């Protein structure tokens, strides 16, 4: 019996997910304790229950059904993203929500899953090859359509997740180094130009050296290189045309310490919360940072501070090891499955979860810019938790059917 179970179900993933959910719910309970927002804790429990059922449903779904559903689901989610731009509800300056009887639905979260599935479906079609220009264009189109719609909301954080995940998926699917460099270089140049001329020159020089090393088609290299320079220059130009408060928002994004009472305040408080936790923490419901609400709404983006403060290094480490374990398990699944579709889905899930984790925990620790993205399985939020549970379900499904072609 036990061997049948472990043959069909990736028990490690199930245990990790349950562990993360438990940590998340405990943290939300603590963060909302005595604030009048206890209802969030009960809601998160409900979302976790719904998510668990969805995870199991996806696990037991007949093989290939998912693959056949990939494009239709993608189409539906794109329509929802378009509708939200027309009829969405504005929360915290972004139009990302559908309000359904008191509960909000955030389609950009669910679209992460459908975009991964659509990319996987396309990249696993016979004859599709990322060395062909046409196939590259289609791949980009599939991933960047939701990005464009999400930037329209505007939700910078979620858009970044898509772009970063696309990079990893393309790498897995066999994109050449040249293509990947073409993908990164203009963006890197644009960001570097905002940090100053020196940073910009370094990026340009590195790009140049890489192109020489890759010895690719000279013409293509020259075009990409020009694009990189152009991206950097035009960014500076556009920046100078922005209104002062818009400029300030971008600069704070790049350097939170420049605004000690705004975004910098959050990072400073977050570092105090983590640092003051020490080895064993201050005890459940005893964290002064958490209980005195120094961080606004820390049950969302700054959730990692709560266990780090109240359970110390033990708590922080436990979450880190669980997330790392889940990601490595996902990579393992991606490389053991027989079908390419299954592999790309698994690697897509790993990519999305990894980018979330890197940005979120990095931000809480003060080593990444403040970008509002949730921590998988821990942050409060129904749409995000449910999409995470669906992604866990996908990993389980691919593992269970790993011998199928």
């Amino acid at each position, binding site marked *: 019996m036990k061997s049948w179970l472990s043959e069909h179900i990736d028990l490690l993933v199930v245990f990790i997910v349950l562990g993360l959910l438990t940590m998340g719910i405990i943290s939300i309970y603590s963060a909302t304790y005595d604030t009048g927002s206890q209802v969030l804790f009960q809601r998160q429990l409900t979302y976790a229950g719904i998510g668990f059922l969805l995870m199991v449903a996806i696990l037991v779904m007949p093989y290939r059904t998912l*693959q056949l559903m990939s494009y239709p689901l993608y189409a539906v989610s794109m329509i929802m993203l378009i509708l939200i731009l027309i009829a969405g509800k504005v929360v915290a300056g972004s139009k990302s929500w559908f309000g359904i009887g008191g509960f909000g639905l955030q389609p950009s979260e669910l679209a992460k899953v459908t975009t991964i599935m659509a990319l996987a479906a396309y990249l696993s079609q016979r004859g599709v090859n990322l060395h062909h220009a046409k196939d590259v264009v289609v791949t980009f189109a599939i991933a960047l359509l939701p990005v464009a719609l999400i930037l329209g909301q505007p939700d910078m954080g979620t858009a970044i997740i898509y772009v970063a995940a696309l990079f990893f998926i393309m790498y*897995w699917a066999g994109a050449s180094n040249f293509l990947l460099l073409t993908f990164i270089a203009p963006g890197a140049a644009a960001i570097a130009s905002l940090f100053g001329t020196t940073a910009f020159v370094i990026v340009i020089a590195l790009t140049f050296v890489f192109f020489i090393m890759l010895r690719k088609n000279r013409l293509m290299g020259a075009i990409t290189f020009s694009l990189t320079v152009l991206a950097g220059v035009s960014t500076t130009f556009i920046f100078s045309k922005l209104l002062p408060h818009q400029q300030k928002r971008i600069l704070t994004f790049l350097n939170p310490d420049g605004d000690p009472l705004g975004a910098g305040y959050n990072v400073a408080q977050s570092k*105090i919360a*983590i*640092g003051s936790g020490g080895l064993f923490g201050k005890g459940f419901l005893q964290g*002064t940072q958490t209980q005195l609400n120094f961080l606004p709404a820390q049950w969302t983006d700054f959730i990692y501070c709560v266990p*780090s403060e109240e359970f110390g*290094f033990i708590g922080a480490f436990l979450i880190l090891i669980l997330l790392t374990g889940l990601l490595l398990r996902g990579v393992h699944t991606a*490389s053991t499955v027989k079908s390419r579709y299954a592999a790309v889905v698994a690697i897509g899930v790993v990519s999305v979860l990894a980018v979330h984790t890197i940005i979120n925990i990095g931000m809480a*620790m003060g080593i990444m810019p403040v970008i509002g993205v949730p921590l998988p399985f821990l942050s409060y939020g129904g749409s995000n938790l449910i999409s995470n549970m669906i992604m866990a379900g996908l990993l389980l499904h691919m593992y269970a059917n790993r011998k199928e072609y």
Partner: protein
Amino acid sequence: MMENAEPASRRGFFVFVIGLMFTVFIVRLLQLQFLYQDVYGKKSEENSIRPIARDPIRGYMLDRHGVLIVDNRPSYTVTLTPSEFRAANTHYLAALMHLDTTFIMERIAKGKLYNRFSAIKLKRDISFQEVSAIEENRLKLPGVDYQIESKRFYPTNAKAAHLFGYVKEVSDQLVAEKPEEYRPGDVTGATGLEAKFESDLRGKKGYEFITVNARGEMLGSYNDGKSDIPPKEGNDLYLALDGGLQACAESLMANKRGAVVAIDPDDGGVLALVSKPDYDLTQFGSVTPVDVWNALNTDEAKPLFNRATLTRYPPGSTFKMVLAAAALQEGVIKSSWAINCTGVFHFGNRGFKDHIVHGSTNIIQSIQRSCNVYYYQLMLKTGLETWSRYSELFGFGSPTRIDIAEENPGLVPSEEYYNRVYGKGRWTQGYLVSLGIGQGELGVSPLQMACYAATLGNKGEYHTPHVVMKIRDKSSGQLVDVPVETRHIALSSQVWSLIREGMRRAVNVAEGTALTARVPGIEVAGKTGTAQNPHGKDHAWFIGFAPFDHPRIAICVLVENAGFGGVAAAPIASMCIEKYLYGKISRPTLSLPVATKDEQLAD
């Protein structure tokens, strides 16, 4: 379908990235939680910066002569910090502050939801005895304190309750909508100018940053106060209002029901706006005592109702100039057209009465003596469509868009209106007859009537009425003009001179109905009106302007249930005009300038 055949190097890259992430995070965790634990532990102990909101001073209001008419004065507010307060003290505090125990408990519960470390406001404008009681019980009542806030104060006799309006505590909904601007316990404009110009008057909150320890106790100011953001004072409103005239009109209307609106015909600036009965603004300001509120709401005289802008009464004979203008301008009649008034007009099987037998009457006399028969006939000649169009041209039937709260657009009946109400073909020309003398379904507000008087005074320049002329931007110090919209009512100069001459004679020439509007030494022009009131005594109207040649004031007076306009309304207008143009009233009492019979004043 394709097979999964990726080289191991691809897998290795992912393992490398994940491993790198793990390593970096672990190193950072060790750095924060072991290496610097002392530093951060101490910081969390002393933590941290807490912003304390500082309320800005609400903008002032000045009248047209620069006299401060809406001021602020300091008042004391009891505050309570939920985290420091002991629940056992609730009864004691309630007794000291003359508050209800449940009220205090509700406030604390609400404050806790927001932030239990920030003080909530319990009661505004407490007495000196209550301040002393807090001082004496400082040790017994931890968490209870008081702070100085500003409260509205009206230094002159111009009380203008409906015009200035009052402020009240923000609703939970507004706090949720604009968390940057409002916090629970703040005040916001509720009516009148206070509401309409809330965003100017409010100013911007400032913040003092203080450091507190982990138990929320204050340690001192953060960064020596260098990071504090001082509050930005609210902008001042420079009003067109004449404080002296406003106060005078208010006293003239004392113990009456009705409204006075005076307008500067040159620019539409509101010189005075009175609605009576009114209420005492000083009873408002944050939380109005329930008994005061109930008394105001249940008073059958409706003191909260702004009669100047919300009333919808028929204007009576004051409306005759609209029909005269329409008929003359459209060529329905020539200026020489005259009738013989026999004191009654028969139409269908009904007789429409006049006050007296006017005999032979031309257009000027018809206004001077307010002949009804003339207008019964003229209405039938002119027709509903033309009449409606000219009524709308003079601004009736739609809001004036004055810059104080709500107003009633009134009603100008049209064919479409009658078809809707009575059904097509189910109403007759007979319905029109009473419209000709400003009765029937026609409904207007005193404000609309004052604007109408102003356009008669300045021959067709319709300025949108406005109370605020300029706004002083406190951050730049600049005085910014509030733009005024103007439209021109194009009537020929002959039409203007005929109807204005009728109005001049009504006040100044024997047999006029408005002789009581005379002001010594000034040529006033005007028109009386009496609105039929099915529920009681008729409402008295007067509209007018002065001086005749270059009017500086246009006025409308409405006195409810007071009878004839010439008796009840015109004398009040006369006093107001004298007050405004001379700066004082020399007449000891209202005296009728010529011996008049009541029938003559009837119209």
